[in-house]
Each structure stands twice: as structure tokens, then as C-alpha cells.
């Protein structure tokens, strides 16, 4: 597999990526998910604006509150995205490779002068293009609505933080796209790969925050005579919780959109929407704060992609 090969592994990558993106743009499935996202985004922003007008008087980061303010019963915009972005990524990726097998297009496509690398990476990039466009549209929409309804343009720092958040959300969705793509190479039936991906998603989104304390209790039991063991357990619990991309995403939004955040201490995503007290950090400090989260996200993404790559390289071309 690592034998010397002639020719570029990237030949055809752009062709595959553009076709993939175009396919997604015309796919009913993607239209539906996008519509869902758009409606929830509008709903949450609208609710946030109502809440902001009622409660907040003086706030240096009024614009960022658009993203993070929740109004019962609706969660905030970032919480919505944390929930829905994985769904978009899964919808884009769950049948990318096994779909080619099932349509019997794989031998024909791979008999063109391209490597398998280009097909897999191209599909990935195609999905990322769509996610990127979707996020950008949402972000611009939010900004536009904010200016229109709050009557106040975002400050330079707020725009900067907004862009950083955009990138964090992009990386988060990328991880889920990698999960979906991996399952689409591992399972031959799209239904199976969709179910497997959704199972992981449910586990990470809903159950992981319940499992983490249990696991921590087993791994680092508290000794009643030693108060440090309690702290240790909390640390273990946090480390376990951070296996979930959702937790990392929650921490990143917290760090970026709540400039007052200095540490992630014992916070969990359910608390993201609650503002913290204290003086705001400068943007560079907030970026430093979330840097470990962002790099673990990118690392997770690379690991998943590599596994998908290796498994795809080894597969027989026949269904």
C-alpha cells in the first residue's frame, strides 16, 4: 500500500469535490436538513432578540448574546447548532462510499486515471464545502438580523469572535462528517451506516454527559478521608467527557462567545447559555483558552479520516 506510485494522489480531487458538492446541492435530503436548520436558526434568533430586549440593558457584547441567549422553551442558537450540525454532516456523509458501491459506479470511476485517495478526499472536501457554505449563510443571516432588529452593528472584536466561532463550528461538523464517511466505508448498506452514525451521535450528544460521571466514579473512586480524591475524580470526569466532540464544541463556544470565560473548570454544555461574571478577556486570550479543544477536534478528525482512508484502500472494488 505504501509502495512507490507514479502520479499525483490529488489528481481528480477537485473534480470529485465539485461534483459531490453539486450533488448535495440538488439532493432532497440535504434540502430538508438545511430547511430544518434555517427554521430553527430563525426561531432561536428571534427568541433571543426578544429576551435581549427585555432583560439586557448595558452589555459590551450585545451582538454575541444573539448567539448564546436562550429563551424558554427554545435553546440558544449555538446549542441548536451543536445539536443539528452533526445531523447535517451525517446526512452529507453516511452513504458517500457505500453509495458508490451500491450504484456500481465505483469500478467505472476508479478505472479513470485517478487514485482512490482522490475519490475519498474529494467526497470529504465536497461535504466540507456544503457545510462551510451552510455555516457562512447562517452566520451572515444572524448578523443581518442582529443589525436589523437590534439596530446595532457588531464591534470589530465581536466580528472576530464570531468568525472564530464559525471556524470552531466548522471543525466540529468536520469531525462528524469524518465519522459518517468512516462508517460509509466500513458498512456496505447505507441504512446500517446511517444507523451506526446516529447511534454514535446519540451516545455523544445525549448519553455521554451521563456516562462520564459513572465512568469517573469507577476509574477514580473517592476516598472519604482524602479530599484530593474528589478533585481528582472531577478531573477524570472532565477528561472522559471531552472525548465527546459535543463537549469540546460546548467549551469552544463558551470560550469564544462569552469573553468573560477564563477556565472551563467544572462547566458542562448545559450551562453554556448562562453568562459568567467577571471582566472579559481579550480575543487572543480567549483563543488561547480554546486552542486545546480546537486542536483535539482537528486531531480527532485526522484520526477518523486516516482510518477511513486505510479501510477504503484495502477494500475490494467489487460489491
Amino acid at each position, binding site marked *: 500500500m505504501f*509502495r512507490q506510485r507514479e*502520479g499525483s494522489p490529488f489528481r481528480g480531487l477537485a*473534480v470529485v469535490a465539485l*461534483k459531490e458538492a453539486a450533488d448535495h446541492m440538488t439532493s432532497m435530503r440535504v434540502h430538508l436538513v438545511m430547511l430544518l436548520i434555517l427554521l430553527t436558526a430563525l426561531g432561536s434568533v428571534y427568541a433571543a432578540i426578544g429576551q435581549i430586549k427585555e432583560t439586557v440593558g448595558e452589555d459590551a457584547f450585545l451582538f454575541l448574546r444573539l448567539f448564546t441567549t436562550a429563551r424558554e422553551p427554545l435553546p440558544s442558537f449555538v446549542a441548536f447548532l451543536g445539536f443539528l450540525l452533526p445531523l447535517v454532516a451525517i446526512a452529507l456523509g453516511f452513504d458517500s462510499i457505500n453509495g458508490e458501491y451500491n*450504484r*456500481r459506479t465505483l469500478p*467505472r470511476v476508479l*478505472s479513470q486515471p*485517478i487514485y482512490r485517495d482522490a475519490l475519498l478526499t474529494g467526497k470529504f472536501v465536497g461535504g466540507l464545502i456544503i457545510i462551510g457554505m451552510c455555516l457562512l449563510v447562517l452566520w451572515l443571516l444572524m448578523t443581518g438580523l442582529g443589525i436589523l432588529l437590534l439596530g446595532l452593528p457588531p464591534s470589530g472584536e465581536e466580528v472576530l469572535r464570531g468568525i472564530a466561532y464559525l471556524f470552531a463550528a466548522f471543525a466540529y461538523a468536520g469531525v462528524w462528517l469524518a465519522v459518517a464517511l468512516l462508517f460509509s466505508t466500513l458498512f456496505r448498506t447505507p441504512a446500517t451506516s446511517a444507523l451506526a452514525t446516529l447511534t454514535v451521535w446519540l451516545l455523544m450528544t445525549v448519553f455521554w454527559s451521563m456516562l462520564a460521571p459513572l465512568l469517573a466514579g469507577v476509574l477514580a473512586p473517592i476516598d472519604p478521608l482524602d479530599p484530593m480524591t474528589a478533585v481528582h475524580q472531577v478531573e477524570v470526569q472532565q477528561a472522559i467527557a471531552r472525548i465527546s466532540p459535543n463537549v469540546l464544541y460546548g467549551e469552544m463556544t463558551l470560550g469564544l462567545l462569552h469573553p468573560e470565560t477564563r477556565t472551563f473548570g467544572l462547566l458542562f454544555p448545559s450551562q453554556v447559555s448562562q453568562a459568567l461574571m467577571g471582566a472579559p478577556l481579550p480575543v487572543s486570550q480567549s483563543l488561547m483558552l480554546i486552542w486545546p479543544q480546537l486542536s483535539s477536534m482537528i486531531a480527532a478528525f485526522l484520526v477518523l479520516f486516516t482510518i477511513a482512508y486505510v479501510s477504503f484502500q484495502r477494500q475490494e*472494488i467489487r460489491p
Partner: protein
Amino acid sequence: MSVVIETKGLVKRYRGHVAVNGVDLTIERGEVFGLLGPNGSGKTTTILLLLGLTEPSGGTVSVLGLNPLRDPLSVKQRVAFLPDQVGFYDQLTARENLVYTARLAGIESGMAHRRIDESLARVRLEAVADRRVGTFSRGMRQRLGIAEIILKQPEIAILDEPTSGLDPQSTHELLTLIGDLARGGMTIVLSSHLLDMVQSICNRVALFNRGKIGLCGPVETLMGDVMGGTHTVEVDAAGIDLKEILAGKPHVMRVRQDRQNNWRVDTDADVRPEIARHIIAAGGELRRMSIRQTSLDDVYVRYFEEAANVQAA
């Protein structure tokens, strides 16, 4: 004549199971070469090995002087492949599917459009060029596959079971198209388990059996070798033993009794008058006699009958 495809001792194992077991092939430029054999005999696997789409467990492959594993892109640039039951993107039109292929093949866009129009016209799909492939019949898809080959303008076209699942009309059309490609100077390798089609267009064939090439050569030679003759005379006669009467007579290669009073005689010429004379002379009663040219079908049936007998013995 130059050799364009050569394999030596090609072996492919799947978890202990041997799919291709020491295949030696030499195919020359401009040939129409048939890979024949029943299902599961290793034809598709051999083709995938030729294209570098799967890795051999042993042996060597050389295509156009290149190693498909070391230099897959150059090989795939110059060789086109029409897979078994080819699939297209159903939600795209015929033209869009070809545009995608052209881009992957690196054909410059202006030229690609010209070639796409031309190739769709050659396979008579120009009227449905902008219809979604999802609405296409099996025969139309197969023709679209041929259009893709024409578009790519390869030196070698490899077609896996190009006519399987087609009705006689579509089969005929497709064979005509393949014949046209061959006349244009393209080297064609095609696989099939159907023999009459191979017989009608192939110069040479290789008979596959359990991952090995049992026989290889021009169609007529195979007939001579396996059947012992080029004609089969069927005789209904009573009151004689035809085997005894015809023993040692010229042009008669073999006599077999199928049923009571019914024989089959393999000959290398039309010797019906002689056979009739011998029967009458022996006092037999000739009821019916017919002759047909041996077809590859007979070779095939006979060859695999014998292979099975050897296996059983």
C-alpha cells in the same frame, strides 16, 4: 504486431480461496480477444488485475509496457474499462455522466464536449442525452458505457460481460458497436460466458476454468483441437452400427451414439454423401441426416464436460 498485454503466472487469492491460479496471457495490438468461461472461473478477477484495480498475490502484469501497480494512472489513461453491469449516476443525465468521466480523465473541456456529442451520436443516444440515466434501460446503459469508451479514445478497451442481461436485439447492436471500435484499431478484450457472441467477433479466445486458462487460441484452432472437427453430422439410421462402419474412413474424426439409432459424427469436411453411401452399402436404413458447423458452444460444452470428467476421475 506488438504485444500490448502480457501476464505471467498471475495468481489472486481471496482468503485461501484461489480466484486466479497462474494465468499466462499475451494479447497483441488490434486483436479482439475473448475471455470465456462459466461464472466464477476468474474472468472478472483477471480483468481487475490487468487494470491494477486489485493487487495480485503472485505473478506479473504488463499493460502497454507499464506495470499497472506502479504506474496506475498512465495505464488507466490509455485503457478504458466497461465493468460488468456498469452503473451510472441515476440522478444525472447521460451527458452529465460523461462530462464527469471526461473531467476525471483529464480531457480538456472544449474537446470533451465535442467528443461527448460525437460519442453519444455513435451509440445513438443523442436523442436522450439530456434525460436522467435513471430512466434508461439496461441496453441503453450498456451503450452509454460504450460511449464513455469512445469519449476516452483508449488504446485498449476491456469489456466485462458487455452483453449479459441484454435481449437479442440489444446484444446485436452492442456487438456491432464493439466491432466498429475494433475496426477503428482499438485492441478489445472482452469476457463472456456466452459463446456465440464471442465467436462472432473475437479473433482469439482463452477458455477459463477454475482460475486457469484451459485452452487459448484462434476460434477455428480450438474447434479442431477440442472437437476434432469443424462439422457435426447427425444421423438417424436403423439396422447398423455406424461406429463400426465409419471406423477409419477419411475426414471422420469421431463417432458417438446419442440414442438408439442416432449418432453424431465429427468431421473436418462435409462428407454426408460418403456417410450415406457407407450406410446403404452396409444394408442399413438411413432415415435422416443433417449437418452443421461446429460452434464455440460445442467446444465449450465439450471442454467443460471433459474438465468435469477429469475432475471426477
